[in-house]
Each structure stands twice: as structure tokens, then as C-alpha cells.
């Protein structure tokens, strides 16, 4: 596996041309959905709902990136932008240096290289098709192999995701939740992708089934040198599967970096709040983060997190901090915070004392 953070500082605006190994690059991506003004029943005025705002992200070949955030943080919209299903209203979404929608329009090559595992695995499988037919579908669509080889290919895909050969003739309804997820993974792998994009692929499962699937995904990523983009709300899953993490809040990436470093000593107060809220054996229940994620139709001025932040200061309410590199140019971490937390402020994650790091604005 490529040690992602050894190569170059991640996810930052860069003046140098993109390195060849960068697969996806998002530059100041903004996506505004036009929605009916709340309260108006028919027609009426439309207002813009910013689902993504100023998102910068680089995904290198072979990297494993977790996108983490609560509901409404823009994870799924970001995923749709990566897949070329949604065109950003501002900014650029690039795949190997070219706009994603353009690459997508050129033919099935992009869809073949970038495979998706949907959150609702059962819903993504046609209930009237057998498992064998479901897995053969992408094989035929992308003309992966001659018709005669399809049964063999289906069986090897089933084996690869740890399903016995006899499930081939079953229908999705006869499979358990964990098995259905495996079928969805097999379908995604059928097109021999280089990138696997998974939306909450292990949520809502029993812990033992979840652990089995996580081990499967980790093995597949390593064996097939896949690039993995994994959406999750579970920090434990993110740390188990992904080397890099991007934490989102209200349409913004608030912190990125190597997963271990970010979760050991979060720099953004929201990252720390998420970290504290995750249940831990016998740890006292920490003070919960007050309030709820505000409506994107009624964003607070300044930093979007300022209304819930326990270390917010006057400037936080005035302007919105951009995602900037922490602690100088060589760092592989970045946070969108005027007052990022010092590492030693995190030694005791259960307490709310915080020291502030004077950020070098010119970094």
C-alpha cells in the first residue's frame, strides 16, 4: 500500500501541477441546490441550499480516505461530485487532471474504473435477479470477459468476497444483511475498478458481521491496490480502514490528515467533539456537544461551527476560516479553524480545557 502521507501534503491548494498519481482533485468545489423556500407550499421563491462550499480534496492512487461527518454534512453530495453524478456549481472536480463530467461523458471507461458500493445494498440489487445474474450484469455491460467465461468469473468473484458458490442461484431476499453487502461488493469489483467508493457500506450491521466486512474490504484494498473512498459516521471504522481522514461539517471539510494523527490529537474543535462523543469502554460520558447542526438554509455568519464551539472567539463569528495547513508547509494536516487546538490540549479528551495555537496565517 502506498503510504499516502509520505508523498506530499494532502488536500491543499497547490501551485505546482498535479502529480501524476493524483486521481481525484477537488478545487474549491461548491454545490448549491435550489430549493423551495421553507414554508411556501406552491411555487414561490427558490433559495439556494449550499450543500458543499469551498471543498478542497486530493485523493491519490492507492490511498484510503474516510469522509466522516454527521447527517447534513455534505458527505453524500461530495460522493456524487466524485462520481460525476452531480456537477459542482463552482470550482473544479478533476479526475486525473480533467473535469469529471467530461471524462464521464466520453464513455464507460470512467464508470468501469470507479465502482460504487451503495449504502442500501439490498435496495441496490434487483430482487428478481439471482445473485449470479446480478454479478454477471456488470461483466456483460463492460464486456469484461467472453460470454463463456462469465460463470467462472462469477464464481471467482463470489469466492473473493467470501460467499459460498451455492448462493449463485439464490435471490437477494434469501440472503442475510451481511451477505447482501458482500454481493454488492462483488458487483462493484466485477468491472475490475481502480477506485472503490463506498457509502456507509458497513453501517446498520451486527458487530460481528461488520467486523467480517471490514476485514474483507481491508484485504481487498491491499490485495488489489484499490483506491478506497469510504463514507462513514463511525470514527472507529474510519480508523480501522483508512489511512487518511476528512472530517466534514455543514458542507465544509473542517479537518484532514492522517487518520491516526487526526484522531489522536484533533486540531479542529468539531473533530475533537466527534472524537469525544464516540463510545469508549468505561470512559465517563463526556460533556455532549451542545445544540444541533444548523440548517444549511440559515447558516451562521463566520465559522459554521462557531455557534456550538466551546473555544470560539470574537473573530470566529465574523469570518469563515478556510482549510489551511497546520504548523507550516511540511505538515500533512490541515484544519479550517482560526484557533486550532494544540496537541497537548487533547491529552485528556474528556475535559474541555483548551489551549490555542497561534496559527501562522502565511503558512
Amino acid at each position, binding site marked *: 500500500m502506498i503510504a499516502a502521507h509520505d508523498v506530499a501534503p494532502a488536500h491543499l491548494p497547490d501551485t505546482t501541477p498535479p502529480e501524476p498519481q493524483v486521481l481525484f482533485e477537488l478545487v474549491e468545489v461548491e454545490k448549491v441546490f435550489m430549493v423551495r423556500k421553507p414554508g411556501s407550499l406552491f411555487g414561490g421563491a427558490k433559495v439556494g441550499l449550499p450543500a458543499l462550499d469551498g471543498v478542497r480534496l486530493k485523493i491519490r492512487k492507492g490511498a484510503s480516505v474516510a469522509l466522516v461527518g454527521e447527517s447534513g454534512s455534505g458527505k453524500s453530495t461530495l460522493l456524487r461530485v466524485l462520481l460525476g453524478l452531480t456537477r459542482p456549481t463552482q470550482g473544479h472536480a478533476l479526475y486525473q487532471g480533467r473535469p469529471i463530467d467530461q471524462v464521464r461523458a466520453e464513455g464507460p471507461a470512467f464508470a468501469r474504473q470507479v465502482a460504487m458500493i451503495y449504502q442500501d445494498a439490498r435496495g441496490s440489487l434487483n430482487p428478481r435477479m439471482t445473485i449470479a445474474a446480478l454479478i454477471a450484469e456488470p461483466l456483460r455491460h463492460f464486456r469484461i470477459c467472453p460470454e463463456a467465461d462469465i460463470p467462472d468469473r462469477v464464481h471467482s468473484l463470489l469466492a473473493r468476497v467470501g460467499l459460498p458458490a451455492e448462493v449463485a442461484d439464490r435471490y437477494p431476499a434469501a440472503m442475510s444483511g451481511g451477505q447482501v453487502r458482500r454481493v454488492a461488493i462483488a458487483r462493484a469489483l466485477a468491472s475490475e475498478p481502480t477506485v472503490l467508493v463506498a457509502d456507509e457500506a458497513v453501517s446498520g450491521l451486527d458487530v460481528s*458481521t461488520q467486523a467480517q466486512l471490514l476485514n474483507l474490504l481491508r484485504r481487498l484494498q491491499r490485495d488489489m491496490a484499490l483506491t478506497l473512498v469510504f463514507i462513514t459516521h463511525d470514527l472507529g471504522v474510519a480508523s480501522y480502514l483508512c489511512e487518511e481522514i476528512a472530517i466534514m461539517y455543514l458542507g465544509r471539510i473542517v479537518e484532514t490528515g492522517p487518520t491516526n494523527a487526526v484522531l489522536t490529537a484533533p486540531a479542529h474543535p468539531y473533530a475533537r467533539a466527534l472524537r469525544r462523543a464516540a463510545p469508549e469502554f468505561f470512559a*465517563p460520558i463526556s460533556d455532549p456537544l451542545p445544540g444541533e447542526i444548523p440548517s444549511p438554509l440559515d447558516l451562521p455568519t463566520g465559522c459554521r461551527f462557531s455557534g456550538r464551539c466551546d473555544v470560539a472567539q470574537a473573530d470566529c463569528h465574523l469570518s469563515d476560516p478556510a482549510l489551511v495547513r497546520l504548523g507550516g508547509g511540511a505538515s500533512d494536516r490541515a484544519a479550517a479553524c482560526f484557533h486550532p487546538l494544540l496537541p497537548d490540549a487533547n491529552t485528556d479528551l474528556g475535559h474541555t480545557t483548551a489551549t490555542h495555537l497561534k496559527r501562522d496565517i502565511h503558512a
Partner: protein
Amino acid sequence: MTHTILPEMIVPRPLSRGPASPDPYLPGTPGSDPLLTVTGLTVYRGSRRILDDVSFTLARGETLALVGESGAGKSTIASALMGLLAGRARVTGQAAFDDVPDLLAITSKGWSGLRGQRIAMIFQDAGAALNPCFTVGSQLTSVLRRQLGLDRATARQRAVTLLDSVGLNDAAARMSAYPHQLSGGMQQRVMVAIALACDPDLLFADEPTSALDVTIQAQIVRLILDQTRAKGASCVFVLHDLALASQTCDRIVVLYAGQVMESGPSDVVLNDPRHPYTRLLKSCVIEIGTHDLDPPDGSVPGYDDLPGGCRFATRCPRRLPRCAAERPPLTTLAGRSLACWNPETGE
């Protein structure tokens, strides 16, 4: 855009704790005054035993966690004890609750004054449990008027106080809100208010936070613990998250496919699990920094093909020949109850 502080953004009651004071949220010593004693609870659906001889006790003021994977029977226990299975399943066994000799023997009329008043329940999906056609206020006042016989004005006043105490800001205005106008966290707060409206002695919370975001989950868990502790009520949590159970509950009952595997004080059971299933369940919990998981193969058996003997035997790494033939009884070992022929030795 103007800077608006939404009502949700304000902390209802700041909970400050000095670092030196004993932590009120850590499981304490279990009380000795039993409130609920369940013996041999068995639930049949047709010929299938979906709960098989479940026994546990709960003391006054204690919190207990029923944990296990899906199909373990956690929610069925809560439903059986609240008399919600009537007509859909056959229930045997005994459940003594305070001065009521057997909850399982109560028939329809006997529940009045008991269910909703002395035993209440918080459901998993508040959005589905609340009636979408009525305002939050009318659903809350109807409980107060029906159960406590309050008049309209007193009920309304009491409802506002309740909504305020569960952290709904501007409670008087929220009374006229419909459930869909509230966020998931706010809906769950309303559920807590309805459940606690009559000061119950026993509260069932069926996965109260699994549909919520983690930061909201922490708020709701904190709220339920605060409210039940303030009122001296006992609480039974149905949970799938072992780590959360260790943080919230004094005692824990580990279930697998309708059978109790291990039960006891949560620190004893979770720090030193002796049942192979508890150990496996714990080894599958991903915490931040977990590097290796070693999950067991297979999954929980369906009710149509339940194995005889110990139901975990088919997946158990410490299985003996007798495990599949003969069900192990609950015995006491190292401070907990355990149903296993070949328990793990201490760590």
C-alpha cells in the same frame, strides 16, 4: 445571512463536573432493593422458542443493558414485559415488579395504571413512534390527562415544564409543533418527555440513540440518565453497542438467539468476559486505534433453524460435544451468572 442562534444551539442545562468529584455517570454499585425479577421468561411463536428461559433481576435505581446482536431477543424481552406481545406470541415464566406479583399474567384491563404510568418505554425511532397528525403538545397532554386525570390547563402547564426539562428550548412554542417539524434529536427528547410524564418506576429504552448522530446520541443518553437518576427510576436499555453499555449501565445481560449467555455487573462482565460469546462480541467492537479484528464466522441463526442445546455452540470456538446436546444452566462464576459448559478462564 444573519447570525441566528437556533433554539437547539443553546445548551439546556450545562452539566459541569469538577475533575475531582466522583463521576455520577460511571456505573455504581448495584442496589439491593429488587424492582423487577424476571424468572424463566420464554416466548413462543408457533413452536419456535424465540426467547428461551431468560432470567435477570433489576434493583431500584439501577440501569441494566440488554445487549446482543439482531435476533438476540432484546426487544422481545421489553415487549413481553410490557404486555405488548399479547395475541402474537405465547409467553410463559414470571416477572415480579414491585408489588405486582407477575407482569406476564396481567390481561388487558389490568395494565391500566401500570403501563405508561409505572412502566414506560422509549422507542428506537421517535419519528415513527410519534403520531404525525397531532402536535407534540397534544400528544403529551393527552398522556397527562388520561393517565393522571389532570384538567386541560394543568396538563398543558405540566407539559410545558416537561418539555423544558428535557431540553426543548422555547417549550411553550414547541407545544404546537408537529413531529415532522422537529429534528430527530428533538423528537427523541419529546419521546423522553412522554415516557417520563408520569414519573415511572421503570423505563425501557429500546435503542434510544441508534438512529441519531453521535453528538446527538451523547446528548440523549445523558438526558435519559439524568432524568431517570433524578427521579430514582430504574432503566432497562436495549443496546447493541457494548462500549455504550459499559458507559451507561450498572448491569448487563448478554443475549444470543434468545438465550442468556452471561449477566452481571457490567464492569465484571465486560472487563473479564468468561462466556466465549461475550468475549467474541467484545473483540468485534471497533474503537479508535483498533488494528486487528478477529470476528467469528457465520451469523446469528434464524428462528427457523435454531440449534438445540446452547444456541451459540455452532459458532463457538470452545465448543464441547455436550454443548450441542444439552443446554448449560445459568450458574454463578466469578461474580456473574453464566451459561456455559466450557467457560473461559480469567485473564
